[in-house]
């Protein structure tokens, strides 16, 4: 029998690694991939709680998270393509034209 806390700990570790990737990586695609990693960590927590509480709602929420992730991936990757076409760079730090410098 696996304790619920193990699943939640794994979920927390994956989420934190996703946050780390989002903050540390300088490549716009990898930043986007890190967001997917965070969503996956949260999904694991949803499924674990759904199992622990004997409720189906957790699984339905995971389904919705996946749907939103799919829409987000489509729009986000389109934005990345547009950015690369206009600015010809993938580095996040070079996209600073909204800043004051």
């Amino acid at each position, binding site marked *: 029998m696996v304790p619920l806390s193990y699943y939640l700990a794994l979920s927390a570790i994956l989420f934190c690694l996703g946050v780390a990737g989002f903050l540390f990586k300088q490549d716009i*695609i990898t930043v986007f991939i890190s967001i997917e990693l965070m969503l996956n960590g949260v999904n694991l927590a949803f499924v674990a709680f759904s199992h622990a509480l004997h409720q189906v709602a957790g699984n339905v929420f995971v389904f919705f998270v996946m749907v939103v992730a799919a829409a987000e991936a489509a729009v986000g990757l389109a934005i990345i393509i547009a950015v690369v076409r206009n600015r010809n760079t*993938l*580095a996040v730090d070079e996209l600073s034209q909204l800043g004051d410098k």
Partner: protein
Amino acid sequence: MQLTLFLIFGALAVAGAINLLVQRHPIYSALSLVTVMGALAVEYLLLGAEFIAFVQIIVYAGAIMVLFVFVIMVLNAGEVIDQPRSRIAAFLGLPILTLLAIELISRVYGDFGATTLTMGSPMVQTGPIGQSLFHEFLLPFEVTSVLFLVGVLGAVVLAARREKPQVVAATRQQHDQEKAMAAAQR
């Protein structure tokens, strides 16, 4: 048995996530994320969520990641040379993040350390999920379809290559001339 499988695939997921961070080329990061998703699908199966496990494989690892890999290929994305970061971020970033992880995990153990999952309980069948989706969550489900429609439109509008106005005007002029000539021949 259950615990062994959990530990093996949990370790695989964490290793994949760390590899995602360490790799410098985006394609390796994307493929590590596929590993993480496969390992998580096994965890979902262990939790009895078979529907979610297979949707994870088909939609996440199958569709979304193919989209990522495809875009990486189209853009011919390579390694990005790291710019130097501010000193505060370099020194405080990792410690604060570790603190966040420790806080999250200790909170989890404090609140749910005693709860163990009984695996003898019935698996979540796909039927009840569908029932719940189309009764209790019908409105969110329908709103999701609108979200998808807007997402598709947004993706097409953003990624579509726009023709230059002069080119459009030129082709239109040419088209009109051809039409006029065809009419004259007739």
